């Protein structure tokens, strides 16, 4: 084994959870169905203290997926060189199993807006996103995964469908894809398309990780449902059904339960992981 190979070579085809400090003792005593953890990169960029100590300890026991939420890969401006070096440092010392980021922008003109903002699917965006991914992959010395967004609106200037756009970005940059099944459901509901068509068109062979999460329900100006990706609730049945549809086509994959707001007690979160185990059990290996 190479010295710089991660402690865990790949994420297992089991459920993982987004790590929250309140679940530290449950995870270190009896993680049950949970086979790996995901952390938000930006929460572990301090110099020391409890966050890094906990992460160091957890990384000895669990494969870790590092999920960036702040690089602004779709930003019109250049990537922030300071943030690139912070990512390089984190990936360097932690040596996680995988790294992922979003098809979105969040920083413009020096302001970080703390949200995943949408992009038009055009040739210009394609070139920019692929170049930024290339720059990141060269900086951290490994491939990344790119995650599909939740859409609340569309750009009249878009010329690509989202699955085709993601496939082309992956082809050009050599990155993998992180498929968020809840985001597919949210976007399809909001833009009145069939989420199964999206999955059927998606390059599932490039998917190394799946996300599942809860969403809120609202309405647009015309009384149509407007779903909002809130990560603050249980995953709804139609999203579990869409996961089944996906797994039947893709085969088993690592499945992350994302619950970032109104974080529940461990048994509630663990029950979601158990449901993911059951979904995986239906799929031939």
């Amino acid at each position: 084994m190479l010295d710089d190979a991660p402690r865990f070579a790949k994420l297992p085809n089991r459920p993982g959870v987004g790590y929250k400090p309140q679940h530290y003792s449950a995870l270190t005593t009896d993680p049950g169905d949970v086979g790996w953890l995901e952390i938000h990169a930006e929460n572990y960029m301090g110099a020391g203290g409890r966050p890094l100590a906990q992460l160091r300890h957890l990384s000895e026991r669990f494969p870790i997926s590092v999920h960036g939420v702040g690089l602004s890969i779709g930003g019109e401006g250049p990537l922030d060189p300071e943030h690139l070096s912070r990512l390089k440092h984190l990936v360097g010392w932690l040596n996680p199993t995988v790294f992922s980021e979003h098809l979105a922008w969040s920083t413009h003109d020096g302001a970080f807006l703390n949200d995943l903002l949408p992009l038009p699917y055009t040739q210009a965006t394609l070139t920019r996103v692929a170049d930024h991914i290339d720059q990141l992959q060269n900086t951290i010395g490994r491939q990344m995964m790119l995650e599909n967004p939740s859409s609340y609106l569309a750009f009249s200037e878009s010329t690509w469908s989202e699955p085709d756009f993601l496939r082309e970005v992956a082809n050009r940059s050599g990155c993998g894809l992180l498929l968020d099944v809840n985001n597919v459901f949210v976007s399809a509901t909001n833009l009145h398309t069939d989420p199964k068509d999206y999955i059927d068109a998606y390059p599932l062979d490039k998917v190394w990780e799946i996300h599942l999460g809860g969403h809120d329900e609202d309405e647009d100006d015309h009384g149509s449902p407007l779903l909002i990706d809130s990560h603050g609730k249980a995953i709804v049945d139609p999203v579990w059904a869409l996961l089944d549809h996906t797994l039947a086509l893709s085969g088993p994959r690592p499945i992350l339960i994302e619950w970032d707001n109104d974080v529940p007690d461990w048994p509630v979160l663990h029950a979601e992981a158990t449901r993911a185990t059951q979904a995986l059990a239906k799929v031939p290996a």
Partner: protein
Amino acid sequence: MIVSQTEFRGALLDGARDRPLGLVDDKSRAAGRRFDVYRNNVAVSLTDALATGFPTIAKLLGEENFAAIAGVFLRQSPPASPLMMHYGAGFPEFLADFAPLQHLGYLADVARLELALRRAYHAADAAPIAPDALAAIAPEQLGNVVMTFAPAVETLQSPWPVHAIWAFNMADGPKPDAIAQDVLITRTEFDPKPHALSAGGFACLTALKAGVPLGDAAAKGSEAAQDFDLGALLALLLAGNAITSLTLTE
């Protein structure tokens, strides 16, 4: 119709601006409330980040007032980096200058204390000196000792009872008296702890942190307050794992 990120950002932070044309629903109608999802996400997530970072200020102002004030701050000072652990460095100065809060003069220093606690929480780990290392130094040499401190050590000087206000709101402390309080923050393992410094403590500690030998630093403490208690200060530093090295100078 091309929507630039400059235009998107402008409309995101300013509810009075028109939503960008070119953002549509699936029937090519104007995005309307759909765009407001992003406006709301940005305002709510940044307000939450400030409330998490400044829990005492949030409690003192109440949820509604805090959200209104945070809404003004986040629009004029959005984060400059994606590290939310550092967001709000300018919040104390904002509170000090914010006209409607002029009657609450202590708010800015309480916010400075909360920022210092947050810095201490994320500061680099450092091994403290052995508990008996200071006692092992010959008494006639003590005055020549130069100390270094853990990165988590923070000090704050205030004309307000900042420690008591923090303790009253966050740690079941008694009702604050109207006194000036200087504060030392130590972190024994992972949880930063603020301590009220007794008179002269801040002057002595400021000298020690600048590399002044203990004898001269103690004199600074005594100049600031006749009843300065060096032993009490050293006990606080030792108990808080604050000192990381001792060096003798000539």
